[in-house]
């Protein structure tokens, strides 16, 4: 293979060594990130992890203390926000309250001194795209939350930005509307082919919408990968806990097999588990990550980890159970209805055994354990 064949297309946005401190406290440090044209990338993390600061740097509202931001090869760090070909959908929308919906959407074009006739056709097009054509003459406060949200999107994409930045745009909406808007956003992104950089603290939203997810913690990138990688193969305990529900069983490496699989002592039982992504050494403490849907509950006479059902809750498509293991932690199991098992339901207090689908486990070095 030649170099040309293996070379990836050069990234549209390239962040190198970005760092920012507020009052001496590091908010972001050494951020390296490439974002490709047309990609839906999500910055995910708990509040205070630096995701919003990173977005504001891209928009031009914050200046990094170190590092560079390249857009199509050109450094844009020194450019003021009004000269960057990126637009933002703000948290709580920041619609201009003294302007109508039409004027809000037209604002960006007006600042460009676009001819009035062109403004009219483009705004009408945009309003049609977000299904708000009849609301053009309304003021923002006369619209519902979801409608305001769509105005904010229309206003931000009308200038055909190279990249659209979205700062927790759905956090103010109720659950059902949020689901609808997620689909709506994906549709708009497909139609326009614009790169989306999306900030959220909602891991479910991140997983369902993104091409790639950047998990941030304390100003650093913990993991960068597809939603599937981040969920199934987290790079750290932090990611495992933050993304999705996690059962983490304590274990200790007993030996390493020739094929890379490891013998692990898990709560008094020795098990042969899949090859870890890190070099394992005997005696090392590990955590075994199992998602609730990986767990299987059996009757007390089957093999597995014995425990008792503590809570049982019906979730419509699944039945969730909290099981207190005799050997230690509470685990969450989530089982789909299966017509082959009519006696599927377990009563509270009933003794059960817990197992999981072999090789669905994921091993992580135990960062919590003393070294």
């Amino acid at each position, binding site marked *: 293979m030649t170099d040309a064949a293996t070379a990836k297309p050069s990234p549209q946005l390239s962040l190198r060594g970005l760092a920012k401190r507020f009052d001496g406290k590091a908010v972001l440090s050494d951020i390296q990130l490439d974002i490709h044209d047309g990609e839906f990338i999500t910055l995910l993390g708990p509040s205070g992890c630096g995701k919003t600061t990173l977005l504001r740097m891209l*928009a*031009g*509202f914050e200046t990094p203390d170190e590092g560079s931001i390249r857009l199509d090869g050109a450094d844009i760090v020194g450019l*003021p*926000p*009004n000269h960057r070909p*990126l*637009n*933002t959908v*703000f*948290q*709580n929308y*920041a*619609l*201009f*309250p*003294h302007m109508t919906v039409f004027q809000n959407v037209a*604002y*960006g074009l007006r*600042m*460009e001194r676009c001819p009035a006739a062109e403004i009219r056709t483009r705004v009408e097009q945009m309003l049609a795209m977000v299904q708000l054509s009849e609301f053009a003459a309304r003021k923002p406060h006369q619209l519902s939350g979801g409608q305001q949200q769509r105005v904010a999107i229309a*206003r*931000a994409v009308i*200038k055909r930005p190279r990249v659209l930045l979205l700062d927790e745009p759905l956090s103010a909406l109720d659950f059902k509307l949020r689901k609808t808007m997620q689909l709506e956003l994906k549709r708009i992104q497909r139609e326009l082919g614009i790169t989306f950089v999306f900030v959220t603290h909602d891991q479910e939203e991140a997983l369902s919408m993104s091409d790639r997810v950047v998990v941030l913690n304390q100003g650093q990138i913990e993991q960068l990968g597809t939603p599937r990688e981040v969920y199934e193969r987290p790079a750290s305990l932090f990611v495992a806990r933050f993304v999705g529900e996690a059962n983490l069983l304590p274990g200790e490496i007993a030996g390493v097999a020739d094929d890379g699989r490891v013998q692990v002592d898990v709560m008094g039982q020795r098990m042969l588990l899949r090859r870890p992504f890190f070099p394992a050494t005997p005696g090392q403490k590990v955590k075994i990550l199992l998602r609730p849907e990986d767990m299987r509950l059996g009757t007390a006479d089957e093999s597995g980890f014995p425990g008792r059902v503590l809570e049982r809750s019906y979730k419509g498509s699944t039945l969730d159970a909290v099981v207190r293991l005799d050997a230690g932690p509470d685990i969450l199991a989530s089982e789909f209805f299966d017509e082959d098992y009519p006696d599927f339901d377990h009563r509270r207090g009933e003794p059960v055994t817990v197992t999981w689908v072999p090789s669905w486990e994921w091993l992580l070095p135990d960062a919590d354990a003393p070294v």
Partner: protein
Amino acid sequence: MSRWLLRGYLALVYLLLYLPILVLVVFAFNDNRSAYSWGGFSWRWFEALFNNRSLMDAALNSLLLAASTATLTMIIGTLTAVALQRYRFRGKAALQGMLFVVMMSPEIVMAISLLALFILLGMQLGFVSLLLAHITFCLPFVVITVYAQLSGFDNRLMEAARDLGASEWQTLRTVLLPMIWPALLAGWLLGFTLSLDDVVVSTFMTGPGFDVLPLRIYSMVRIGLSPEVNALGALLLLLSLISLMLSHLILTRKRS
């Protein structure tokens, strides 16, 4: 029983507030020169007022001074308030504190220190010295009024405008000003009234060529109460009532 007491008390308060004004207006139309007896309705004091050149000049001077003071103070004060609200810079707290010092310090102290300053600079006392002095003592009030309105202002609106391609100036013109102009209007009116009826600072700042209304009235009243002053008072009352109603009308229309 207590209800009647409460009503009576309220009536007394309002009587004390409005009786002097009522007396002034009534006697502006009194045909009798004496301030103690009613001699029938007449416009003669208004006529006398309009024929009194020196009083009319002083009134025009005062209106000009008040309008200039209000306008300049509004501009400087708004920019100051915007700076204080939006930016973080060294010495911001000190600057804010100094505004309060100016507001709290006795007017006479400010008058004397300004006089000393202008004499030191060799400035001729007159319109310019009055204007500078009036701007100085009006500024803190305007800054605080506009600042209060700005505190409730969502800075993300300014960011949204910048993000959509507006320069600093365009942002100010298209987003900030249309949203905070009621505060600017309030600031202007405040500056106007403060300047119009100021006596203490004006006494020290005025020159021989530029007489202002409050000082003129003061010197007239020292000789004896002239019904022309009542007529003037009635006119000024009418003017302030009209402006009050106008600002109320504008503000309520904006809200709906």
